[in-house]
């Protein structure tokens, strides 16, 4: 765990100063209830508070909620709220504010992209008194505490919500919340500026800084080009660079003025889902052949210069619920791929060296949204294409605009879909392999698996509050997914931050989000 390490040391915190944080781009929306991208969460974590705080060990502690209880049927979460919390516009934080916000997330008009998923089978919020909020679900929803600890379920000021909810998306002074910083201004395509919120005093108990932030403010700069971000860090234009590319790690390590702070991604590694409803991926032989045809080890090592590890499972190793038992149960085996494809009937060869069956080329398509695909991912697509070509399988890359990707995902017109997801725990497996969680229903079951066995285990896992039992069930799921080759996990990305040595206390929480209120500069 490198989360608290890195640049934590260095004497007593000093007040004052600002830092510049370079990230990969601009959020799709500054309204966390709407936004899909994690950049919004990174930039705004220090502007929003959550009901509860997830600690490094995976347990939760009070934050804006002093305490909470869950009804035995798992349908009702009752939060008792702190009474000293105010929004930066002066509005009091109370149960009405919770209700207004959660209703806003759930409302279809909000067109929420991430928060609506996080809030699960939300029914309503009851407000028996100003400081008690009861969140009611239509079905048991055990991941809710985890969800509530993310900034996506943070709180806008009710004043803003009633006056100008659409304006929140454009950021700046429209964003008003309870956190240790306020959103001062934003310049599209360039940067967003945040200032210290005076009088902040409701940090979670385990936080290193319980009061106002040390920094006067921080600036988030949007720098999509990896090279520019790294260059800016080395030249001192940035204090912290987000998402340092693996290929720059060696160079930055040798630089005395910067340190690196890295975390394995939590959630799903970069994974290719094989659409089992679409021929030839309805044939397990073909799927396993594909799985065996790709040398993820070498590709990952070369492309990322040994900085990233290859993935063994559809969860990353640091995700709660990861099953070490799947390691080394599958992998690159060209002979096996050959045998399986022969068995599947693809025995012919055409002029370009691709396998054929009945004169039909073995050709599959990979769809992706061109505007949301990073260079690293695109490189992996390219490598996959070549690896499959070696096995006689043609891979057609199909970059689409976002709407078309959504369309294809909902109709199932694709062979491969690629994703990497960040979710704090194994519940992700349900989202990605549960039969009802098809993309058209808002889920991420891109493999379109409808497997009674998986469904059964996942249902049980959802219902149980027993962590060990749940992890066992998740283990079974992972084993089956890989044995059936529903998906091809590739590499475990790392979130690598480059930090100037004058910056202290920069650390990521369990959700890989920075807490700027804990940072100070010398």
């Amino acid at each position, binding site marked *: 765990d490198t989360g608290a390490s890195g640049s934590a040391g260095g004497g007593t915190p000093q007040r004052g100063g600002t830092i510049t944080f370079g990230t990969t781009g601009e959020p799709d*929306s500054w309204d966390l209830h709407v936004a*899909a991208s994690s950049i919004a969460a990174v930039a705004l974590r220090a502007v929003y508070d959550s009901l509860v705080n997830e600690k490094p060990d995976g347990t939760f502690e009070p934050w804006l909620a002093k305490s909470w209880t869950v009804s035995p049927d798992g349908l009702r979460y009752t939060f008792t709220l702190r009474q000293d919390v105010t929004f930066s516009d002066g509005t009091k934080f109370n149960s009405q504010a919770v209700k207004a916000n959660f209703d806003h997330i759930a409302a279809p008009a909000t*067109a929420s*992209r991430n928060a609506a998923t996080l809030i699960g089978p939300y029914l309503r919020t009851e407000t028996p008194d100003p400081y008690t909020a009861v969140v009611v679900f239509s079905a048991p929803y055990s991941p809710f505490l985890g969800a509530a600890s993310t900034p996506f379920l943070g709180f806008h000021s009710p004043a803003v919500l009633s006056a100008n909810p*659409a304006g929140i998306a454009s950021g700046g002074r429209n964003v008003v919340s309870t956190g240790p910083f306020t959103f001062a201004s934003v310049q599209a*395509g360039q940067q967003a500026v945040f200032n210290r919120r005076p009088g902040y005093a409701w940090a979670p108990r385990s936080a290193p800084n319980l009061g106002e932030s040390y920094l006067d403010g921080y600036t988030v700069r949007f720098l999509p080009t990896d090279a520019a971000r790294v260059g*800016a860090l080395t030249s001192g*234009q940035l204090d912290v660079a987000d998402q340092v590319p693996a290929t720059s790690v060696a160079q930055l390590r040798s630089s005395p003025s910067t340190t690196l702070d890295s975390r394995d991604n939590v959630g799903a590694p970069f994974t290719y889902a094989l659409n089992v409803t679409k021929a030839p991926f309805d044939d397990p032989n073909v799927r396993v052949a594909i799985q065996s045809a790709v040398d993820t080890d070498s590709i990952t090592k070369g492309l990322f210069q040994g900085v990233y590890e290859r993935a063994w499972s559809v969860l990353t190793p640091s995700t709660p619920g990861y099953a070490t038992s799947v390691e080394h149960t599958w992998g690159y085996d060209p002979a096996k791929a050959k045998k399986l494809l022969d068995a599947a009937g693809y025995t012919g060869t055409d002029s370009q060296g691709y396998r054929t069956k009945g004169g039909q080329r073995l050709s599959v398509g990979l769809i992706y949204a061109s505007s949301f695909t990073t260079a690293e991912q695109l490189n992996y697509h390219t490598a996959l294409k070549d690896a499959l070509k070696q096995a006689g399988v043609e891979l057609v890359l199909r970059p689409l605009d976002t*709407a078309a990707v*959504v369309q294809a995902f909902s109709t199932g017109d694709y062979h491969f879909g690629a994703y990497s997801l960040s979710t704090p725990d194994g519940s992700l497996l349900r989202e990605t392999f549960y039969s009802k969680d098809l993309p058209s229903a808002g889920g991420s079951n891109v493999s379109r698996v409808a497997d009674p066995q998986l469904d059964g285990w996942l249902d049980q896992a959802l219902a149980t509050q027993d962590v060990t039992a749940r992890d066992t069930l998740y283990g079974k799921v992972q084993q089956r997914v890989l044995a059936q080759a529903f998906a091809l996990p590739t590499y475990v990305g790392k979130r690598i931050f480059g930090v100037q040595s004058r910056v202290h206390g920069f650390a990521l929480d369990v959700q890989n989000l920075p807490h700027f209120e804990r940072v100070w500069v010398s």
Partner: protein
Amino acid sequence: MPPALRFVLRRAAGGIAVLWGAVTVTFFAVTAAGGDQIDAILGPDAANLPGLRAQVAAQYGLNKPLIVQYLNRLWSLLHGDLGWSYQRNEPVARLLSGQVLPTLELAASAAVVGFLLAVLLAVATAGRGRLARGLASLAELLAVAVPSFWLGIVLLAVFSFTLRWFPAFGAAGVPSLVLPTLALALPIAGVLAQVLRQELELADSKPFALSARARGLGERTLLVRHTLRHALLPVTTMSAWALGTLIGGAVLVEQVFSRPGLGSLLVDAVKHRDTPVVSAVVILAALVFVVANTVADAMYPVIDARLRVSTT
């Protein structure tokens, strides 16, 4: 009305007509090809929610007859309303206002640097010996052949990543302007220097240069009083071309240097098919072009008296 004023007014009217044409063409091109405008507005997740489409169509006026949409567009453009960005959900005018300055800064500094470099190079080498002119024209040819975006990449690799003399990104202050300016200015300087030198030599070989020399004028006086003015005339003609190159080049150079500006905004908008932003930038460019052209046209008679009276 004095002829000069009438001339300027006529040019201005022509410019406005061109601009109107540009707006019209963009509008109809966008509507003709833009069946997926609503998809673009709704974005990935909401695109398939049923009622929403009609709602959005109504909100953006996309349900009205084409001609009404067109007139609305003209009307709002007249009021400085450039439309609404689908992708960023913001007025385009506001989006642009934040990005115009860095681009302007870059284009202006590249224009000035390119022009000065060209004049220096041309004056220093015009009419010199074979070697000097050979070297100069080789340099110019190279400058012309090297694409500004690649030049930018090389400059970055050398001066920013290796030598660390200049920052790698951003639009803060003069240091961050140096490399992009060079990348943009050198190719233009190459072309301009070629033209300038040829025109200088051409003017120098004209009979009036001989008679000026025969009057006892020194070389420097001849350059300042006579030949340079002649050489600058075609450069004025080329200002429109240079401007187009500057704007086009800025888009790419900004991308290479991760500079904020219209370029990055535009490219982003193209990728997301945010047609209101794309057409606004394009129209803005056309506006700048038309204004610059009109100014250049109005400059001719100032520089060249032969064009003052229209005898034909």
